[in-house]
């Protein structure tokens, strides 16, 4: 491991890590462009590089890409990457309340802490954790996702009907496409482009960024108040360690844990840890109105999920996300096959990934910390120009996912849908969550039933699955007993202010 750090601190590796991280942050911050897109675009360049250089570049892009998303999530309420959705819930209200720098600073700190927490798991107990995560079969995935769904349903206690309406609509839009349990098209109406369903990115970008652009075009928001920047001092204090320490630790562990499970990404990690934090909070009613723990838990968890996802990748060769599948592709070009043999065949790569992950997080901190005061001024830019630029990137990004114009139309359509939902007071959170989680939930349940020949009682033999389902049940029932005095989460919109 020590040698890996030494290798990493050679000029070329450090250079690639720096380039990767900084480009990653910029791309991550732009709504529509994501880390996986950047990595896919860089892939051909890595063919000509030394394997270690290639890996440091890609890891830098990965970490930077996930971290950069918080900038636009907080300042413009447009998640730069899907992993930053929950950051819009509290980060944007904070920015609107005149604390954009505080929100950014907290988000950055949380990202780094999340990264470091998951690095300890990655460096210290990868083989053990990977083995544990492997025990998760379809029943456990189903239980986990069900738990997350129910917890998120609890998010909208205020307007249960509208929250549920949003969630159900989200689920409905997740239905078309190839049904993975039968291999046949479902609700595709003989339209070929519907065979791949509605893509995650076009839907998210549409519902959040495009709807926001439409809204601001209709009713322009005045540029934020011209805040004076305190020289040389950023609004993060030692007392934050006390106030947010427990939250960060918990969210870091949740994020690492969810990242460990292949196929469940940073966005779900952030969602689950956000709701957990809110469930445990003494003042849950403050979430959604610019509450600091909300920003902290989401940003800690989404960065921690990267470290978690790297665990099955380097120990088993199992990619946890699209981004990592591309990372594997980059390695195979150099005839390196990630898997248990990687530590024997190419220790410099296996340990290099671990070391690069830590250094990328630190670089990300340095880069974002030194520029945060300027980043915060994005809100001061003339809105028409800013929104036009973002719109261009949204179109490019949606197109680039699958090189398909269909996705661009899908994005625009969901922009209109998102705007319509908000106008009717239907919160976007449950809508997107239903869209993201229900396909996993459905697929895993059907896989579990397929595996057990349709025997539902089979779940009784799976303790973890039972545990998750029990938590789900509790979450669902507890509020019924406790009188419904909690004022639910206000949807992340500024209905009141508009």
């Amino acid at each position, binding site marked *: 491991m020590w040698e890996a750090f030494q290798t990493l601190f050679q000029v070329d590796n450090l250079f690639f890590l720096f380039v990767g991280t900084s480009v990653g942050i910029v791309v991550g911050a732009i709504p529509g462009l994501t880390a996986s897109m950047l990595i896919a675009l860089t892939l*051909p360049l890595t063919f000509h590089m030394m394997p270690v250089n290639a890996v440091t570049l890609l890891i830098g892009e990965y970490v930077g890409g996930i971290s950069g998303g918080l900038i636009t999530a907080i300042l413009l309420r447009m998640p730069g990457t899907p992993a930053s959705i929950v950051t819009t819930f509290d980060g944007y209200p904070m920015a609107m309340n005149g604390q954009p720098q505080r929100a950014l600073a907290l988000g950055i700190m949380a990202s780094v802490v999340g990264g470091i927490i998951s690095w300890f798991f990655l460096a210290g107990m990868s083989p053990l954790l990977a083995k544990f995560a492997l*025990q998760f*079969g379809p029943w456990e995935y189903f239980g986990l996702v069900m738990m997350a769904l129910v917890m998120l349903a609890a998010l909208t206690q205020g307007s249960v009907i509208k929250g549920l309406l949003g969630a159900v609509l989200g689920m409905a839009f997740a239905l078309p496409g190839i049904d993975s349990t039968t291999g046949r098209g479902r609700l595709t109406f003989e339209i*070929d*482009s519907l065979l791949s369903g509605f893509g995650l990115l076009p839907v998210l970008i549409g519902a959040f960024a495009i709807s926001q652009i439409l809204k601001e075009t209709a009713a322009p928001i005045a540029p934020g108040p011209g805040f004076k920047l305190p020289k040389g001092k950023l609004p993060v204090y030692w007392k934050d360690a006390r106030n947010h320490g427990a939250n960060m630790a918990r969210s870091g562990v949740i994020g690492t844990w969810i990242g460990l499970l292949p196929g469940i990404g940073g966005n779900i990690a952030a969602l689950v840890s956000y709701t957990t934090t809110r469930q445990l909070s003494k003042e849950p009613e403050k979430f959604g109105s610019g509450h600091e723990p909300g920003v902290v838990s989401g940003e800690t968890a989404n960065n921690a999920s990267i470290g978690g996802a790297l665990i099955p990748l380097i120990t*088993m060769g199992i990619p946890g996300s699209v981004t990592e599948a591309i990372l594997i592709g980059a390695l*195979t070009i150099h*005839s390196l096959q990630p*898997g248990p043999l990687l530590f024997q065949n190419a220790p410099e790569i296996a340990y290099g990934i671990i070391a690069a992950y830590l250094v990328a997080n630190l670089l990300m901190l340095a880069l974002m910390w030194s520029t945060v005061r*300027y980043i915060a001024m994005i809100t001061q830019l003339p809105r028409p120009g800013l929104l036009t630029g973002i719109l261009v990137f949204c179109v490019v990004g949606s197109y680039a996912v699958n090189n398909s114009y269909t996705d661009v139309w899908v994005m625009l359509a969901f922009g209109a849908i998102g705007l319509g939902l908000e106008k009717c007071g239907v919160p976007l959170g449950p809508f997107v969550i239903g869209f993201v989680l229900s396909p996993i939930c459905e697929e895993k349940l059907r896989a579990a039933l397929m595996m057990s020949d349709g025997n539902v009682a089979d779940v009784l033999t799976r303790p973890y699955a039972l545990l998750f389902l029990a938590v789900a049940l509790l979450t669902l029932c507890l509020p019924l007993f406790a009188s419904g005095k909690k004022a639910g989460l206000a949807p992340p919109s500024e209905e009141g202010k508009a």
Partner: protein
Amino acid sequence: MTKMNKRTLATGVGACALLLGSSFGLTTFAGKTDAHAADFPSKPIEVVVPFKPGGRTDTVARLLGKKIQEKGWLSQPFVIVNAAGGGGANAVSRMKRGDTDGHTAVHWHHQMLISIAMGLGNYDLSAFRSLGYTGGGSPVWAVRADSPFNSLEDVVNHLKKEPRSLVEAVGIGSIPHFVGAMLSKQGGFETRYVTANSGADRLRLLLGGTADIALFAASEYTAQGKGLKALVYFGKERLPNLPDLPTALELGYDVSWANPNWWLVPAGTPDAEADAISAALEKAIADPDIIKYFKANTLQPYWVPGAAAMEDAKKQLSSLKPIAETIN
């Protein structure tokens, strides 16, 4: 302050432009070394890959394209366009929107035949003109290393005694499903399925004990070292990397799956243009660097010309259709 703003923004935009420029720039300018270029190709050839970047089909397309460009076997480079999703339907519609003069091609494999057999997407083989196979690879059937089964015979005997007692990780309507189904049909045995959408998923389910059997690319299998035990190889002949592993044909099952790297153009593409690309591909697959990559990744480098490849595919398709009918 505004100056600072602009600078931050400019750095961002600049970085993106640099990145875009560097990947597109490579493909637009570097290929023009061949001064005596015939009129074909007159612009970069768009190669549609129906998968996300990083997989085998994508990597092989990029490597061959790079080699052809490097050696100047075609006067213009390949530009790889990934159009994943919809069981390949996105890639086909992308191809149909493209040129029919040789500037649009597709690099795929026999998953296309499965999509056709399953009726996904409104196309069949008549939409394509085959350029040829540039080698391919065959999968293995594997169990966990600690499994009590040491041969295919063990598994088959067990399943005949206790039908449906083992779980097979497959993506319904994907290659693992069809290969497994061909084998079980021949052998007269039956497994239970659990959905697994990718090689990574199958690996996860098998190693974690959720599934008992799964199909892997030979390279996926060898990367796992001692974690897995391969029972049978689906190639026509034994794989040099795994000399002790018997083929299904040797064991008396008439099942083989040689998943080729198949190059295609739209049906209307003229002979001269199609032949020009075929000729370049044939040279590329015989190149020592490419052969080295193929062998290291348990793929076989070979060349099958366009018409012969189409014949082979039609034969394979006819054996897939009866299996597709059994899926409801």
